[in-house]
């Protein structure tokens, strides 16, 4: 039985306190009708006897204490899912935004999902070719991985993400990824960039977009990634599609969470973010992965802008503790016009070891990338030294390394936005660059591979 109440006791920020409520449930979905006839939605954050604390997704403007009516719907927030959602645009709570008809749901699912049983997980180990050398060669992405892009304001993270989405495929199987895109608090221009890019590459009919833009209600953002994942889970594990979930920007998501926490007067953790930020982020990120005996998979690429490029800020920090590595964009590389400006030293893919090698990429991949990283690190050190002491003070070998590092940035890391390199091209390019360095320096490569690849030319 659905009941309506007009007994609002208190409104503060995005929160509403209703009293005299019978039988309200935790996480229950709520509809609020304002005097002007507007309908807002919310969910119950806490019930204490007959008082219910409601979080309003659309914000509390237009709500007054006397005339508003609150209706408790007796169910948690569910979303109707269907594979017809591909190619459509929705708002942050999953309502159509493209003027199209409502989706006829094939299933009604709770947006909070249920945790995957660890024994049901299958280990991600299928190589995804993104066509970007700095990712494929050094920080390899695999199917079912969660690999965030750590960026800063003004860095081209959207272009990098769009390129990954456009070019990603699994070698040998030409099936493309379907994309679930969740936008949280990004600007119209940024969202438009993605839509244009999907349209241009003809990918739009494989994309489900959930848009909560900068001027949309901030509190709604807390649900956007969950809605996106609910659809992704349905498409991946029920319909057998390989899904790439792109969430942008997680920083805005965390800020919305902080806003609610502050309104509830909770004891803040670091930088005012709630103490449960880790758990909350994990409940989003951990929904990606692979499940045994299921055809589909969910690969997650969340994008977040690090305030002041600070990696120890709570959002990137906690994200790094949950995700399986990170792609860090570097401002200094960006200034050098290296595109995509991936900081290969600080970036890391924890799952690469299981996704590369014979039968996946190529036998020499592991040795090659170790050697490349080692040489690049040495070259960067030489560069630092030459800043202090001048290039003349470098030994001949260091001069070679310095040159190597420059070439490596210019040719290996940097590539065109539309350049889609196969893994062979990436690996061969690595060897081509390594040939600048004397063979005796190849300490991390097995002799057999040196003979086969280094000596090839």
């Amino acid at each position, binding site marked *: 039985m659905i009941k309506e109440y007009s007994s609002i006791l208190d409104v503060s920020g995005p929160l509403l306190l209703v009293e005299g409520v*019978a*039988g*309200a*449930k*935790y*996480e*229950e979905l709520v509809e609020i009708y304002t005097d002007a006839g507007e309908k807002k939605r919310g969910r119950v954050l*806490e*019930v*204490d006897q*007959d008082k219910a604390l409601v979080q309003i997704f659309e914000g509390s403007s237009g709500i007054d204490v006397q005339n508003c009516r609150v209706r408790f719907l007796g*169910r*948690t927030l569910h979303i109707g899912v269907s594979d017809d959602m591909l190619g459509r645009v929705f708002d942050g709570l999953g309502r159509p935004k493209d003027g199209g008809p409502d989706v006829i749901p094939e299933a009604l699912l709770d947006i909070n*999902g*249920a*945790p*995957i*049983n*660890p*024994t*049901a*997980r299958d*280990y991600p180990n299928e190589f995804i070719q993104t066509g970007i050398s700095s990712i494929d060669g050094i920080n390899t992405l695999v199917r079912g991985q969660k690999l965030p892009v750590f960026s800063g304001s003004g860095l081209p993270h959207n272009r990098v993400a769009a390129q990954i989405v456009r070019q990603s495929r699994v070698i040998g199987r030409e099936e493309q990824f379907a994309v679930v895109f969740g936008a949280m608090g990004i600007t119209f221009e940024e969202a438009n960039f993605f839509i244009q890019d999907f349209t241009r590459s003809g990918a739009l009919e494989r994309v489900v977009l959930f848009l909560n833009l900068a001027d949309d209600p901030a509190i709604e953002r807390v649900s956007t990634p969950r809605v996106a994942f609910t659809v992704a889970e349905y498409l991946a*594990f029920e319909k057998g599609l390989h899904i790439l979930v792109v969430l942008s920007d997680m920083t805005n998501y965390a800020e919305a969470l902080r806003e609610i926490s502050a309104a509830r007067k*909770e*004891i803040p*953790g*670091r930088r005012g973010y709630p*103490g*449960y930020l*880790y*758990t909350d982020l*994990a*409940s989003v990120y*951990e*929904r990606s*992965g692979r499940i045994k005996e*299921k055809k589909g998979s969910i690969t997650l690429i969340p994008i977040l802008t690090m305030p002041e490029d600070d*990696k*120890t*800020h709570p959002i990137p*920090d906690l994200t790094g*503790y*949950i995700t*399986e590595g990170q792609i860090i964009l570097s401002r200094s590389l960006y200034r050098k016009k290296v595109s995509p400006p991936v900081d290969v*030293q600080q970036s*890391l893919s*924890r799952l690469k*070891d299981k996704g590369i090698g014979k039968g996946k990429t190529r036998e020499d991949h592991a040795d090659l990338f*170790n050697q490349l*990283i*080692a040489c690049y*690190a*040495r070259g960067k*050190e030489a560069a630092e*030294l030459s800043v202090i002491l001048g290039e003349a003070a*470098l*030994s001949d*070998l*260091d001069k070679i390394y310095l040159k190597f590092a420059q070439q490596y940035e210019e040719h290996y890391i940097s590539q065109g936005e539309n350049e889609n390199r196969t893994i062979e091209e990436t690996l061969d390019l690595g060897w081509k660059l390594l040939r600048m360095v004397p063979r005796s320096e190849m300490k991390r490569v097995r002799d057999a591979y040196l003979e086969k690849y280094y000596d090839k030319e």
Partner: protein
Amino acid sequence: MRKGEITKVSGPLVVARGMRGSKMYDVVRVSEERLVGEIIGLSSDMASIQVYEDTSGIGPGEIVYMTDQPLFVELGPGLIESIYDGIQRPLDIIRDQTGDNISRGVEIPALERDKKWHFKPVVKKGDAVKSGDLIGEVKETVLVTHSIMVPHGVEGTVSAIKEGEFLVTDTVCEIKSDKKVTSLTMMQIWPVRQPRPYRERLAPSFMLSTGQRVVDMFFPIAKGGTACCPGPFGTGKTVIQHQLAKWAEAEIIVYIGCGERGNEMTDVLMEFPELKDPRSGEPLMKRTVLIANTSNMPVAAREASVYTGITIAEYFRDMGYSVAVMADSTSRWAEAMREISGRLEEMPGEEGYPAYLSAKVSSFYERAGRVKAVGTPEREGALSVIGAVSPPGGDLSDPVVQATLRVVKVFWSLEDRLAYQRHFPAISWLNSYSLYIDDIAEHVNKDIAKDFTDISKEAMKLLEQEAELQEIVRLIGVDALSPEDRLILEGARSIREDFLHQNAFHEIDTYASLTKQYNMLSICLRYYHQAQEALARGVAFSDIVGMEVREKIARMKYQPESDMEKITSLNDEIDTAFKTLMSSGIQQEQAGEDADVREGIDTESEKQARSAT
């Protein structure tokens, strides 16, 4: 069954009234969904309950069922090779029953009820037994013989005992005392928050070898000791925990995945049945119990998971086994406490953590130790605890790190600086410490080599000297150093690269026995000593650094344990190489050396050394 009524729901915290008569830490069942919860606060007839499952859809007015029992674990045959969630529900069976996602209110017994075990008595009718005494044995896996002990509080004469195939719930033995006859099964229960008793606590004096060179040689942990490894993300905390779970010289491993990644548990589940224990040659899974409460599973169960794990470990300790518990990560456990404390509106201590954080952390680690178990025959067991800590931003002033450091005796400091250089394990040799070195010295020196601790101390001194010299190098350049000092840099570099650096993913390098470690380090030092002597006799520094034998030293780590003589034979090779060098090298020195070569090599070694500090 007595019932209460819910009045408040706030995330994992539920408040109920009508709960008079229940006790702290009693387990309750919340709502008709029968979610598992535990009472963590009482005030008149109101009880605060932390619920171990998702509470959405629960509201005031629903019923709370009291069980009048504390949270307990089932102990008996069937524990090994299991994977449990935070409150000891078997995840593999949950999956068979409810599918790939974990649903709520599942009630499955921890120990398989329809599996038969062969019970072999070790006492006979008429024997007098008391708590903790062994009454029989079950061969649980090839590696583990499960001792069936008389539960605590039971005493009397054996009136019946039989050998045969039994279920864990079948009566295998009857014990008669003055008042009554107690039927014993192979299973007993124990409340998780209460440490299991022991007869006597012993000082830790044996090393728990881990096969990890930096750990065993420089910062060893004792059997029955405690260690922690804090570090920022990406420094390999989990890899170290996995390595220890794989190679530590313990008979039983309890691995607690507390609030960490789901795929990491999958990795363990897939890898452990494949990997062989270096001592027995049997799959590692045959000695492992897994507790998995991943980050997206309910937060309150995370709080319980470490207690569940350590209670199981204590049970095996009481059988006389050496048990190691890995808890990854204790920060997530502390965060769960913080979340519950915040919801209880308790006055917070540092960073929002509850004021009792440090008390909880220390009482957890204090459950480790080497003990004499209760009962006969006399048994000596050890329980070692290794906790990972994930401080925000790698900041060691974090309250969880500080609370942990106050109790643990071994500190492995993981540093991102080393991780960026791909120096793994990224354990800093300057900041880490172990307080067990003197306790275990006697036994290692007797069992492995009499100068085991001596070479360890010498190598550490070299590394410390290197750090001091680096300060000078940074200010005025390597040219200002004397050749002797440069040799120190070289010697330290060799220890860092040829000894400390260990590749966890290399099939041979992943594990090194103590003998191999000893041999490797003594080779590194032998080279250094010989070099010192050669230098004193006037051999050019560049010739010493450029010796070919160094490549063989660098490859020692990839020699399998079975080819130990390939490492030990290096002793002679070094001697010979230096002899040749000294006879020819001195002449070369007089003939004048190739300055360019020398300069090139010097800068190279200097820079590598610098990059490591």
